[in-house]
Each structure stands twice: as C-alpha cells, then as structure tokens.
C-alpha cells in the first residue's frame, strides 16, 4: 500500500479555495475510483468531487464548514501498489502561469547625475572610461548638465585632439583655458593670501624615528598622533608655541587646540582637535582619523571647524614630502610639519646606520617666537621623540 494525497483542485477557472459542505465518505472507508467523495462549495457553484483513487480513506483534512485552499491536502488515501496507473498523484492547480514577475529596472544604473545636472549617455560613457565619478563633476551645460569638456577637465586631459607629437607652434597663442573656481577655493585663497602677510620663518630638524616607530606600533596608531602628543608636552615648556600675535601684545593660551591640516578635493581644510594636551595618544589617533575622514567626505561638524586652533600640525609626509615650509594657520604662531618617515643614513655612535628618519619643519611667527626659541623647542621635541622612555611617559 502507498500513501497518496489528493489536494484541493481548482474547480473552475482560477478559484483559490473551496468550502467543504459535506463528506460523503468517512475515514477508514474503502472507496472506488470516481465514487463521490465530498461536496465542495466554491464561489461559483456547489460541486461533487469524485474520488481520484480506489483505496482506503486514511484521513480527511477538514470537517464540514472548513475552507481549504486550492493545492492544500484534502484527502489522504492508502492505495494498493507503489505506483497507481489510475488516480492522481498531486492534482494540478489551475494551469501554471508561465509569467515571471516583472522586475522593474531601477532608474539611474551606473551613474547618478552631477551635483547639479544630468549628462547625456555618451558623456556618462566617457566619464566611466576616464575613471571620473560623474557625481563629482560640476556641469557647465544647460540646467547644470555635465558636458564632455567638464569631464575631460576633471580627468586632467587635453580636451580634444590626438595625443601623439604635434607640430611646435610659435607666437602668442598660449592655448588658454579658463577654469572656474568654486567658493570654497575662493575662501581658502583669501585666507592664504592674508596669511602670507605674516613674517614667518621655517626651521628644520632631522629626527631618528626608531623609537617613535616602535612606540607607535605598540599602540597600533600612526606616527602623527604620537607627534601631536609630544608637541603638546613640549608646549608646556615652551608656551610661546601656543600663542598668537595680538597686535599690541602676545596672547598665550593655556588650552591646546591642534589644527590638523587635511588636503581635500576642495582644498586645504584645517579641522581642530580640541584640548589635545589632555588626551591620550590613542584618543588623539581616533580623533585625527575622524577629522581627516570627515574633512575628505565634506562631513565635518561645527565643533570641528569652529574652534580656534592654537597650534597646527601638517602631516606633509603623507604625500611623500621630506621637508616643507608649512603655512601658519590663522590665529596661531607655530605650525609643525612632519615629513615622511623613511630609511636614511644616520650617524649613530660614530657609524652610519640605516634608520627610519623624518625631517620636522617648524614654521613660526617671528613676531612671537625668535629663532633661538624655536630652535630650543625643536631640540626638546626631537629629544622626546627619540627617547623610548620619554615617549612612554606620554599618556598612552
């Protein structure tokens, strides 16, 4: 004997269910093929359903009054033999629909429009081919539409024309092209121009970063937060580093707010790491990461940019610079530049050794700090950075 389940059939053109009106057989009954089994009421009619098998009724799935969904078990039979030539395996529901659900394409696939406008398909294609994120392109076409020239400009390539050798031209035609500037760049330019008026001088010192690297790796941070912490410690003994020229006096600041210079697409941004002197190196590291990421994403808060920096640090080593002349941030008298930490030939105990080393560049407002003072501060800073013991003394 084999068990066969008879499911509720679709009794008329797309019905979804039927109500059992009355059973014409009972569990345990032996029935014959086509013997009336049950009366089912549908939305259209009351219908007598004949048995699809000859066999024994094992189970009736539902009493009179119960509504059974099409496809749900109605009667379980025990039929003779493993496979019955007559009867029904699993009754089909209404003719299967071959329709797949239609999945709507989402509009705007590969490229959102530029910040202000859209772009025609060939321009999108070009941007894609040149590796330009069209969402960052300012469009100069009608309605802010991004044009091919906009894309090419951003990609930094010549507008048109073959790249191979051209004939040399003489004369006044310089191949001029006007590049528009946005307000952010305009503002930064104004600030920098004002800053250029301050008498500032830069002094340099090479630092053996062996201890620095060892210490910072122990903490699992980059060198910059360690340098910031060291600088804050030095400021305690050299308060003029954390001061500003106030016209008719010099203003010392007790709190140390470190401006961290970050290069972004829109220009130089200097978010402020507040009360740096009281933070641990780990905390400084977290803050620096947050500020740098936020600056690049254009997502700094007012708390990050509103406070006045009292001193500034510029990690010029991050783009490979060995030494530089960092510009003073407004309202400060000192900016420390950290050059790239890379192996150099240093003289240690009379011998030339390859050591990780960096050049520190200290720009200072000469009205506030003089050369000797700057030099002394740098000496102490370098000594601290080169001292394993000293570094570990910094609040970790």
């Amino acid at each position, binding site marked *: 004997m084999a068990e066969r389940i008879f499911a509720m059939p679709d009794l008329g053109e797309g019905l979804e269910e039927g109500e059992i009106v009355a059973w014409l057989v009972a569990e345990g009954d032996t029935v014959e093929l086509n013997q009336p089994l049950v009366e089912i009421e549908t939305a259209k009619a009351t219908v007598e359903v004949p048995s699809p098998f000859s066999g024994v009724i094992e189970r009736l799935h539902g009493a009179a009054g119960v509504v059974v969904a099409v496809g749900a078990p109605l009667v379980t039979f025990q039929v003779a033999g493993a496979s019955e030539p007559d009867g029904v395996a699993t009754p089909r529901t209404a003719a299967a629909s071959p329709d797949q659900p239609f999945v709507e394409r989402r509009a705007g696939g590969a490229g959102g429009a530029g910040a202000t406008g859209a772009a*025609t*398909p*060939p321009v*999108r*294609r070009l941007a894609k081919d040149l590796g330009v994120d069209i969402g960052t392109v300012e469009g100069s076409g009608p309605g802010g539409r991004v044009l091919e020239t906009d894309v090419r400009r951003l990609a930094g390539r010549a507008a048109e024309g073959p790249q191979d050798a051209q004939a040399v031209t003489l004369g006044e035609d310089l191949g001029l092209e006007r590049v528009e500037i946005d307000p952010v760049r305009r503002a930064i330019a104004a600030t920098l121009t004002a800053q250029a008026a301050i008498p500032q001088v830069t002094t340099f010192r090479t630092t053996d970063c062996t201890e620095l690297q060892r210490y910072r790796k122990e903490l699992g941070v980059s060198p910059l937060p360690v340098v910031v912490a060291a600088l804050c410690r030095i400021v305690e003994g050299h308060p003029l580093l954390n001061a500003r020229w106030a016209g008719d006096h010099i203003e010392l600041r007790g709190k140390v707010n470190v401006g961290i210079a970050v290069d972004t697409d829109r220009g130089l941004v200097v978010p402020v790491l507040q009360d740096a002197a009281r933070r641990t190196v780990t905390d400084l590291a977290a803050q620096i990461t947050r500020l740098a990421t936020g600056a690049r994403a254009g997502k700094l808060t007012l708390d990050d940019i509103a406070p006045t920096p009292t001193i500034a640090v510029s990690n010029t080593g991050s783009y490979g610079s060995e030494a530089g002349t960092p510009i003073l941030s407004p309202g400060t008298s000192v900016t420390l530049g950290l050059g790239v930490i890379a192996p150099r030939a240093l003289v240690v105990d009379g011998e030339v050794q390859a050591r990780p080393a960096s050049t520190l560049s200290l720009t200072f407002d000469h009205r506030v700090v003089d050369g000797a003072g700057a030099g002394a501060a740098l000496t102490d800073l370098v000594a601290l950075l080169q001292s394993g013991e000293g570094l570990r003394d910094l609040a970790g």
Partner: protein
Amino acid sequence: MSEQAPASDVREWTLSGALNQALRDSLAEDPRLLVFGEDVGRSGGVFRVTDGLQAEFGPDRVFDTPISEAGIAGTAVGLAFAGWRSVIEFEFDAFSYPALEQVIDHVAKMRERVRGRVDLPITIRIPSFGGIRGKEHHGESPETYYVHTAGLKVVVPSSALDGYTLLRHAIADPDPVVILEPKARYWSKETGVLGDGPGIGVGRVLRDGDDAAIVTYGAMVATCLEAAESLAGDGVHARVVDLRSLSPLDDGLLATCAMETGRIIVVHEAPRTLGMAAEVATRVMELAFDHLQAPVGRVTGYDVPYPPASLEARYRPSVERIRTAVLQAVNY
C-alpha cells in the same frame, strides 16, 4: 494596363501599376494563388491594383466577394487548410477592422495552434494612411494593431519599384503578411526595372547624412526626403531611412543609424501613443543608448480621431514639423 511593355524593361511605374504587376507575376508563377476581395475582380480594384487580373486569370482565381470582411479573412484561412494561397484585400484601412477577430484569432495563430501542420500563406493588402483628403475612415493608420499581433509580418512600401519587391516577397512568404499600401502614393511614379530586392525585415537608407537620421515609412517617406533636402540647405545633413518592414523591424539598421548619427527622429502619421515611433525609440535606446546625443524625437499624428479633409494637412507630419524636430535634436 496589362498590355504594357514587358516588365523587364526600364520604364516608368506608378505604385499601383507596380503592385498590379506583382500580383500578375505571382498569379502566373503559382497556380494555387487566389486573389479575392470586394471590387477586385470585375472592376480591378478601387485603386486599380487588381486591374485586368480577372480577365487574364479567370474568375476562379481572381474574384469578387460580398461585403464580408470577416468572411473574406475566414475564407482565406479555410483555403489554406485546403492547400491554397490567398491574397485578400480590405478596401480601406478602417474596413479591415471587422476582420480583426479572424486575423488576430486565426490568421496569426493557426499555424502555432496546429503545430505547423498547416501553413497560412495569406497576404492581406490594405490601402492605408491619409493624404487623399478622403472621407472619415479612409485615412487611418492601423499598423499598430497588426504589428502588435504575434504571428503576423507587416510591411509598408513607399515607392513603386520597392512596392513590387515587397508584395512579391509577401505573397511568396509561407506566413501571413499584412501589406499596408500608402494610397496617397498609388499614383507616384518611379522609373526603373521591377525585380527582386531586399526581403521582409530589411530597411533601406534613401538619403545619406550623419547629423541625424529620420526613420519613417509609407507615405511619410516622401515628406521626410523633402525635409532632409530643406535641412541640407541649412547645413544639417539628415539621413532618411525607409523602414519597409514594421514587423520585424531592421534592428541592425536602427542601431547603425543611432551609432553613426546619435540623433534619431521617427515620423509617422499614426497617432503618437503606441505608434511605431514608441517601438523604434525603445529599440534604439536598447541597442545604442550610449551613442544617443539627444532624446529620440517623434513627429506623429495626434491622439485624436483622424480629422476631416480640411484639417488633414495640420494633422499629418509636415516638412516644417520634421525640420523642427531634427534641428531640436541637432542643437540639443
């Protein structure tokens, strides 16, 4: 007109005459071809397209029927079961509608229904489109109904020589083909030799140009050529494409035009919504999206019932409307 110079000579043909010759040549080649419909036998058709055929081939092969469009279409189906090939005519575009049930339910579906055991080699000729200042129901563009019916092929000639080619292909096709003949062009003339040419599913470029491509068919081809000539005077070089076949469309040609010009303008008399321009625009987008320099333009009839003769010229796409659309695309 059957006592003309042999069809193999170079001579001037009207579209009506070329179609007449196509029927004549097909009747001569295939003894199991029948031509029937209203007024096609004794009088030779209201546009003379069947002129002289009954006299030449006899009333058993070329005959008139009662006014029974559905009956005519159904008879063609039954004849196919008996192994006969038919060319039937619905006298004017709107008069094909009574037969739509037979065409959609049976002509288009019968072969699939009987799993290929019976072919339906039926050609349905329908004088179509406007431009003859006709009465109501004599200027319709019914192509969408037929193109949208799976199982049919649909062609539209625009000139005499190509009309011969298309009708010959349609008749020879073992499948049902609807040929919509632009009645406004029945008396247009073309000089040349009637012969074989591209078959169903192939379009043709009638005028070259790389600034934009005007895609059209039927009576509008002549108007588009005029517009292109006018645009050339303004330095805009528009390509003119005669689709010839609406189902299937020549996807390859559409893709090429889109890639080479980036600007497609579709012109048809039929009302805008769900006219052929909608399908062509979508195909072009699917095939050549990245090459489009402007949105696909449509110059079409309006979504109103076809107007009376006095307003017809304001309804059908004009040279001016086509020019404007092309220039819009070029200046996008």
